[in-house]
């Protein structure tokens, strides 16, 4: 989920900013570029392309690699940097904990980090679902279980597509139709039920 990564990138320092304290300028520009940007693990480390990418949440440390170069055609300085950062790295089959932030007629949006995942209505529970779009809730026909905005859920990532260019438009597909997944209350009730059974024996 979250890990600390080490990466390299090149920061472009535009000419108007040259002349002041270069190091401070570099840090500000680096932070702007790197935080919220998508980077990848090398191919040898992560085989599955869907799981290679991650989003940088917070820049922790920064150092220059070599000197800043001026390239023909552009007056800006290109500085190669190496940095340590906190990264958000969702993996397939990962179990996440999140909040329902929106309910639409095709499913719920679950916030579990810097991005939201989609819980399709077919994946909410083993039941036929009634969608109450006005009141932003989903009701199971038989079980009568309700899922609404602000509920806390445990879900699993089943589909992953991180968008390099627009990280905020990444798509994560979730499911709760597995044992142990679902709204917190449902899980608690199940646990109580099991205890009762055990107690009864």
């Amino acid at each position, binding site marked *: 989920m979250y890990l600390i990564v080490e990466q390299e990138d090149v920061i472009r320092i535009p000419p108007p900013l*040259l*002349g*002041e*304290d*270069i*190091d401070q300028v570099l840090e500000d520009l680096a932070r702007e570029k790197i935080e919220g940007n998508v980077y990848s693990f090398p191919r040898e480390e992560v085989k599955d392309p869907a799981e290679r990418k991650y989003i940088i949440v917070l820049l922790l440390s920064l150092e220059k690699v070599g*000197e*800043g*170069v*001026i390239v*023909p055609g552009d007056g800006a*300085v290109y500085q190669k940097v190496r940095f340590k950062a906190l990264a958000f790295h969702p993996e397939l089959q990962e179990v996440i904990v999140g909040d329902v932030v929106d309910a639409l007629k095709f499913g719920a949006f679950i916030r579990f980090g810097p991005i939201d995942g989609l819980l399709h209505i077919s994946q909410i529970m083993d039941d036929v679902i009634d969608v109450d779009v006005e009141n932003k809730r989903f009701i199971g026909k038989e079980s009568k279980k309700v899922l609404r905005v602000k509920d806390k859920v445990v879900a699993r990532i089943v589909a992953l597509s991180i968008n390099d260019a627009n990280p905020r438009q990444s798509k994560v597909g979730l499911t709760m139709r597995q044992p142990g997944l679902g709204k917190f209350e449902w899980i608690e009730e199940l646990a109580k039920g099991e205890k009762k059974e055990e107690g009864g024996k």
Partner: protein
Amino acid sequence: MKMTELSLIWKDKLENVDRLRMNAPVYYAVDFEIKKELELPVYGYITLKGSEANYRVKITEIKKYEPMPGIIKKTTKKLQTLLKIEEVQDIAAIPLSEFRKEDGTYLKRVTKFSYGMIEEEKEIKIKKFREFTPEEKELDENVRKKYGIALPFSVIEKLVKVKEELELNKKEWDKVIDKVVEKYKKRRVDPYEAVGIVAAQSIGEPGTQMTLRTFHYAGVAEMNVTLGLPRLIEIVDARSQPSTPTMEIYLKEGIREDEEKVKEVAKKIESTTIIDVADVITSVADMSLTIVPDSKKMEGRGVKIEDIVDSLSKLKTYKLTVELSEDRIKVRLPEASYKKLYLLGESIKTLTLRGIKGISRAIVRKSRDSSEWVIYTQGSNLGDVLDLEEVDGKRTRTNNIIEIAEVLGIEAARNAIIEEAINTLEQQGLNVDVRHIMLVADTMTYNGVVEAIGRHGIAGEKESVLARAAFEITSKHLLTAGVLGEEDHLRGVAENIIVGQPVTLGTGAVTLIYKGKKR
């Protein structure tokens, strides 16, 4: 080195020393007798002028002369002794007066041969090449330290000479050195300068002013030498045979002053082929060739019919039946094949009877400064000509560059390219800085063989697919590259232009870095 034993000292010629040096270890037949019993190995000192010893040789065998193959002869007659020479060393000249005779007196001059003993613990300095004198070495080191550059050897030599000749004091000399270094630095080419294209243009532009026709070589009326642009193209294309191969043969001392002697040599060299003295008639009817000599021509060239028969025996590839009648020779092949008959006919016609193969004419003329007689030839055969005893191998030249590469080596060929090109341009009144031509010559020879500039040579060896495709025969190169999955690293000029990137020469080769200031 302690030398208490007797050594041999004799006067000899430089050519003999060179031959010994090239062939050692070798048996050397000399014209003096060694009567004493000497303990081998013994040292021999060779003097050229008779007053000082310039070379030292190691002798490991001494015996009476007997003819043997592979020996080097000091003279042609009166050979008495065979010495086995192991090594030839250049030494710093030792005056012969430092050698003692057995009776205790010192040697004076040696005109032919003598025994001698060199002083004990005399240091024999073995010279290699010309090294720095102490002043030159000091100057070189100072210049390196102070200016960080190494001046060329010739400049250092001259500076030291000038200091002595003009008797400069330290201040003046420092100023001179300063100026010299400044001028030298200015003339140096900047790294990443596009010297190739500059050289190409510097040679090409005068090329547009050169004549396209060949004309007679002024001074030697009978001979045709290719001049102007066609010759330059020949040189640069590394043609295996120039269209007018020619040699300038210089002769040794003793022969070159005498016109008659030189004419004799010329006659010896000029080749006579069968077609020059006879007709060759092919008879299909009885599958034979008939050689009909022309008696006048035979006489003129000094050829007898027996010579023709002899030369036919050189055709080893054919099993011939030769019939000699009074005035003609009939040659038959064992197989009845038209093709073989035709080929045989062609071989016979060009068979060399006498003279050196390839030399069709040899003319004797006085040299440009009228001090000697020189042979000018039409046709070139450097290898065989240099073998002749009368020929001065040091000055003889040919215009066939490929031959020079074969006989004298690739460095000689490089120099020949420069000389031929410069002469061709100068003859047309054009002045091109030698550096441009040096670059071309170096490029043509840097692989160890003479290669043409065009697509069969250097240009075709380029690593980049795009560069070769852009040069000639585009589709072939691109197709082959595609099939083989070749990569182009975009290091050269042409490919970067095609792709649209800055070229890796001149300003494109500069990497700029920003050195910002910290507050």
